[in-house]
């Protein structure tokens, strides 16, 4: 009987993988549901004896089985998109059944965990420090230093919290990992728990990811005995973007409004329920099992450039021909990512802008495409890597509208705790509207009132409004409590800088 492998990743399902799988079953095949290779433009991708076919529909089934399908892409593992990657975190992508403990163990699962438990906790922390692993959530803080702080902090109860509130547009690596290789995340958290002395972990997943939640719950039940005495629980978010900020996430798990906390105290010292807490992103924790394998830390440290070590699962999204997951060592340029690997825009039109790092990331002009993927290089160019999501826009994009949307999004998702973000974002929307309408012609009704003696009696020119917008962005950047208000100026100012013609 022919065995057919089809992904059950949420994106494959959204593209109709279940119907294709059912058609193969009706044709008498055994269907194995595996994780996704990450070649999203080919989903649903069908694999028969290592040969790939995609994007497949139920109508393609007879031709695929007869070997005459025009959707053949050759051997999947040798596809250029996969072959030129360096997959460590996503080493199992496309190869294993997500909830099979046998598949996991047969592909190196639990090796890092078993080795870690044979070491002293401080030695485990030392290996993570040596690897140079930095937080993959966006801030890039060295994971080993965070772990050491929690390990050294006094307190009987400590926690490991996995931030899986992946709300940034253009990011889906956390989702793919949770759905495709949940045991790897569980193993990473169990290692973290052992290293810092925490016996309880929480995975905070956004409610928009029902498939990831189901997979994680099933995987935790299967791995319970292996990771004991460490215990894990999934907590589901409730649609608040700001809960991806670590302190707001902790409040949310505690059952409070997802408002940001002022730092200090750091979560590493006073985190969940006031106890020392490691808060790490999914990709950070999922990188740990590999680092703890023999020689893993040195290999990780040898990859990448400057202070950005190891590999980064980059997500190619938006208007791109070959979108999907591309894991590679740091240092790759945007030109390679967008034009060579991504194949340019899906619409076939010229690339106008690329947003790196989600809704809070800067819009990057094709003139800057030689920028190497590196935390410090991006920071130096007034941009950020964030969670590694890349949204491509073609020349039909209106960057003024995108700048306005950045402010609108911040206003919709602000937790309301600090003034620059709560008020500034709304004022930002109004200001951009005014700039796009050509400036403020005259003083408004309130400003014209006699008691408003400090208000201007005349309107502002467009130029004066732009200066005001820059001033507002400065205030938000330096006055906000967290990255939501603090980074919203990045997309706004970068759009204004590179595409002033889109602002009216």
């Amino acid at each position, binding site marked *: 009987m022919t065995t057919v492998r089809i992904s059950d990743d949420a*994106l494959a399902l*959204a593209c109709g993988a279940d119907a294709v799988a059912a058609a193969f079953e009706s044709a008498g095949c055994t269907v194995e549901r595996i994780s996704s290779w990450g070649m999203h*433009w080919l989903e649903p991708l069908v694999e028969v004896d290592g040969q790939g076919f995609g994007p497949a529909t139920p109508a393609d089934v007879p031709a695929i089985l007869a070997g005459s399908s025009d959707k053949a892409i050759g051997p999947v593992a040798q596809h250029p998109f996969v072959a030129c990657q360096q997959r460590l975190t996503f080493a199992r992508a496309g190869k294993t059944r997500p909830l099979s403990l046998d598949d996991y163990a047969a592909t190196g699962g639990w090796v890092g965990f078993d080795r870690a438990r044979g070491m002293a906790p401080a030695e485990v922390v030392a290996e993570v420090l040596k690897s140079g692993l930095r937080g993959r959530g966006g801030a890039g803080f060295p994971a080993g230093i965070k772990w050491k702080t929690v390990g050294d902090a006094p307190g009987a109860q400590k926690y490991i919290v996995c931030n899986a509130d992946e709300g940034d547009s253009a990011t*889906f690596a956390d989702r793919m990992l949770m759905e495709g290789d949940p045991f790897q995340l569980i193993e990473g958290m169990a290692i973290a728990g052992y290293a810092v002395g925490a016996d309880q972990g929480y995975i905070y997943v956004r*409610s928009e990811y029902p498939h990831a939640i189901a997979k994680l719950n099933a995987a935790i039940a299967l791995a319970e005995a292996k990771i004991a005495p460490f215990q894990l629980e999934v907590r589901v978010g*409730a649609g608040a973007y700001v809960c991806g900020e670590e302190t707001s996430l902790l409040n*949310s798990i505690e059952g409070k409004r997802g408002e940001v906390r002022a730092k200090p105290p750091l979560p590493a010292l006073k985190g969940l329920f006031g106890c020392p807490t490691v808060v790490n992103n999914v990709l950070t924790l999922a990188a740990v099992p590999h680092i703890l394998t023999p020689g893993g830390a040195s290999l990780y440290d040898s990859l990448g450039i400057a202070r950005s070590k190891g590999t980064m699962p980059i997500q190619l999204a*938006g*208007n791109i021909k070959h979108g999907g997951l591309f894991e590679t060592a740091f240092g790759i340029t945007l030109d390679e990512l967008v034009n060579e690997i991504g194949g340019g825009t899906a619409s076939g039109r010229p690339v106008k802008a690329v947003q790196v790092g989600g809704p809070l990331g800067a819009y990057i002009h094709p003139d800057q495409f030689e920028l190497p993927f590196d935390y410090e290089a991006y920071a130096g160019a007034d941009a950020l890597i964030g969670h590694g999501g890349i949204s491509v826009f073609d020349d039909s994009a209106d960057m003024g509208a995108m700048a306005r*949307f950045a402010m609108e999004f911040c206003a919709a998702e602000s937790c309301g705790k600090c003034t620059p973000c709560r008020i500034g974002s709304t004022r930002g929307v109004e200001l951009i509207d005014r700039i796009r309408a050509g400036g403020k012609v005259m003083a408004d009704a309130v400003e014209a009132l006699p008691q408003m003696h400090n208000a201007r009696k005349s309107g502002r020119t467009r130029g004066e409004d732009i200066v005001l917008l820059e001033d507002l962005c400065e205030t938000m950047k330096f006055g906000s409590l967290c990255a939501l208000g603090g980074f919203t100026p990045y997309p706004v100012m970068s759009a204004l800088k590179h595409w002033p013609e889109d602002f009216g």
Partner: protein
Amino acid sequence: MNNASLDQIIASHAGRPGALLPILHDVQHAFGCVDAAAEATIARALNLSRAEVHGVVSFYHDFTETHDPRPEVQLCRAEACKARGVEALVAAAENAAGNRVKLKTVYCLGLCSSGPAARVGDSLHARLDEAGIVQLVQNA
């Protein structure tokens, strides 16, 4: 609202640290909303004030204070879906929805390489064009 099942939901989370959000999820799922009466009951059970519970309910987009019986279609309008042309589909989707279907804007379903994307219940839909979204709304 059925008090017996509200009490059951609360009892099923007894002793759980930070139980409020899991309780609210279950209540929203069972009753389609978290109304004032439910807030008061939950507050009593968790030794909170009703204001504290209401503060949490009103903070999160997933919880609603009144029940909307209409089917819901969530349409992603975040950056990556905008780059793939979702804005051009909105008018047609709104027309198809009318007052019968609740068309809700969400920011990101994690299908950013293959937008425009939508979600109905737990079923996801990608690569939508105008005909696709209209059909989805009509079948909701």
